[in-house]
């Protein structure tokens, strides 16, 4: 009863949110570029796990013995960058196009052109080197989604407002106005010596990360960091090429590793509760926000074939913790229904992990794992193959699925009602 009420409430919230034109434009763009993103991500998974030294499959299959692997590494990395670039570029254009379309059909294309000019203007960097050219456009897959969405929206709104209130009509006048706007944004950025989108999350993380070296407030620091990071991801402060890296170089993790290697066991370690044994082992199953749980729900319980197919397509990258494609596919960004589980499911997993370590149910992860190791295996491999750690990780995954379930139901509802209405109309 309570769950049903909550699902209905969430559905209403989502329904309200979907009326916002800017929100619809963002989702239109994300949905359209998600296949391109997925290709880029699959190539990136190949690079990270198979071709890169210390990658997961590279290590467990001993691929270092194959000569062409190192050459393939460079090629696939380049390819994934190309796909990410094109996807980001398209995202910006599509958002502007759709927002312009919602204003007026005639505003769709000019809005997209304005957004494109702005995008190039903002990302145009002058690098004075002796032999090299003077300028370059920097779009290497490391631009956060939020930047693309905002630039796309600014483009559409700017065109709409200038047309409506300044009565600009010629192409030249629009171009000039766009360049003035771009110069203004660039000038403010230069004045504040920061990039609005890339530099915003960094100071927050630096502040939270400083807590991680304090053994007294370890759990608090880890939880704050998890909440902060997932909130930023939810807001789109994440780029397609961003990957999760386990904190094996943390001071506390290193002290644990050294102790475990000396003692040959995992008992009485100096810092059992740390970011590696908690967050990296139990809070990022399938990448940010414990997203493997949501993917499995779509895969098992979605009533729509397309949703299930999308979940299957994203299973491999999500298993390898690269979940950006799935986040764009759902979409997760600004999704009012998903913010609660996306932030709190990992926190609850961290607390459960801490409790299990504290009461001795499982041992903390200590040993180093290869890069891009599926987080489902992190605790298992980090404890030198303790089976109870693997069972506990799977239990955490199951609990996460249960916690995601009401929100997943709310996500499924609008699509269901839409299909129902169509059927009734027929």
């Amino acid at each position: 009863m309570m769950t049903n009420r909550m699902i209905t409430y969430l559905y209403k919230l989502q329904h309200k949110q979907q009326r916002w034109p800017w929100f619809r434009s963002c989702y239109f763009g994300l949905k359209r570029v998600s296949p391109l993103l997925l290709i880029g991500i699959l190539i990136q998974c190949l690079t990270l796990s198979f071709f890169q030294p210390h990658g997961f499959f590279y290590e467990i299959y001993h691929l270092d013995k194959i000569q062409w692997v190192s050459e393939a590494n460079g090629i696939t990395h380049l390819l994934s960058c190309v796909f990410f670039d094109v996807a980001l570029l398209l995202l910006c254009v599509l958002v502007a196009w759709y927002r312009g379309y919602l204003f007026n059909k005639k505003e769709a294309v000019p809005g997209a052109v304005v957004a494109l000019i702005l995008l190039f203007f903002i990302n145009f960097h002058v690098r004075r080197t002796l032999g090299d050219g003077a300028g370059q456009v920097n779009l290497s897959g490391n631009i956060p989604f939020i930047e693309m969405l905002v630039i796309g929206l600014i483009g559409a709104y700017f065109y709409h407002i200038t047309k409506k209130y300044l009565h600009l009509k010629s192409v030249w006048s629009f171009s000039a106005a766009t360049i003035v706007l771009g110069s203004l944004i660039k000038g403010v950025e230069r004045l504040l010596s920061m990039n609005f989108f890339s530099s915003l999350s960094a100071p927050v993380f630096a502040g939270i990360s400083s807590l991680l070296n304090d053994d007294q407030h370890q759990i608090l620091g880890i939880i704050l960091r998890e909440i902060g990071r997932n909130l930023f991801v939810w807001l789109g402060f994440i780029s397609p090429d961003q990957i999760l890296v386990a904190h094996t170089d943390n001071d506390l993790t290193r002290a644990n590793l050294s102790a475990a290697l000396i003692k040959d066991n995992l008992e009485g370690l100096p810092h059992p509760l740390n970011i590696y044994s908690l967050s990296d082992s139990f809070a990022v199953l399938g990448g940010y926000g414990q997203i493997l749980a949501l993917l499995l729900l779509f895969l098992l319980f979605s009533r729509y074939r397309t949703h299930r197919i999308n979940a299957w397509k994203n299973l491999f990258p999500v298993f390898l913790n690269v979940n950006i494609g799935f986040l764009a596919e759902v979409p997760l960004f600004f999704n009012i229904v998903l913010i609660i589980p996306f932030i709190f499911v990992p926190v609850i997993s961290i607390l459960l992990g801490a409790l299990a370590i504290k009461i001795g149910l499982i041992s903390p992860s200590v040993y180093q794992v290869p890069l891009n190791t599926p987080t489902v295996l992190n605790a298992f491999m980090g404890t030198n193959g303790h089976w109870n750690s693997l069972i506990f990780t799977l239990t955490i995954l199951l609990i996460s699925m249960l916690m995601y379930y009401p929100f997943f139901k709310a996500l499924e509802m609008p699509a269901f009602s839409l299909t129902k209405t169509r059927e009734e109309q027929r």
Partner: protein
Amino acid sequence: MKKKFLSSSLSILILVIIGMTIAVGVPAYFWTKTHVTKERVQNRSKLYPVILVPGSSATENRFDGLISKLNTGNKKQSLLKITVKTNNQLRISGRIFPRDTRPFIVIAFENNHDGYQNIQRQAKWMSVAMTYLTKKYQFNHFSGIGHSNGGLIYTLYLEKYMDQNQLLLDRLMTIGTPYNFSETNMNQRTNILKELIAGKEKLPRNLTVYSIDGTTNYTTDGIVPSTSVSTGKYIFQNQVAQYTKITVTGKDSQHSDLPQNREIIQLINENILQTGNGATSNITQNATPQ
């Protein structure tokens, strides 16, 4: 309809999980095992000393006879002697040869008197010497031999002072150690035995302990009652990885002669110096003073 979706997705998912377990889980498991073993070996310091602690009234020269007998033939392991003064200062003699990975280090005490309080102090002084040694020679594992009360000092040091996260004692041999002082009745536990039993959980789990008992008759080695040595089982048994009690009789089985006993020297050679990693025989034979 819904059930049909679920069953088809579930059956595919089960197949994927089985496939993943075979293709990913099994190689990952074996990689982890190999990697951790390799890391453990790499993490061990090359220097792997044998640290000897004499009993009460004995000086730093107590083990000279034993060490000269161990250093026979081509084997020449270096000897460093440390005496800890009552003001925590160290008097050091001898040296560790540059290429010797298995030197002998003797830790003796200026106040070498018998008694519960003195043994407590000597355990603390041992920790002073160990801090100096680990800092200076940068080793993280060692083996130990304690004669008489030296075994008590060793056990107290392990329970109260050794940081198991920094240091590993893999093998300990106590020779004629009176875990229950001179008490012959095993049910009458003295203060030292009570304290050692109370702190036994702090002993390293992977430690192998050999407790050697010498008897000139059926009950004693002349000083330490056989039953007192046997009470060591209440401290080590079911606590460390392995606890073995060995009784030596015949020639040189009197308490003070035990370190020179042929059988015990053989036991030290077999169980303490032969570590199974080849460090002893291969490296120390070529060690020469420089």
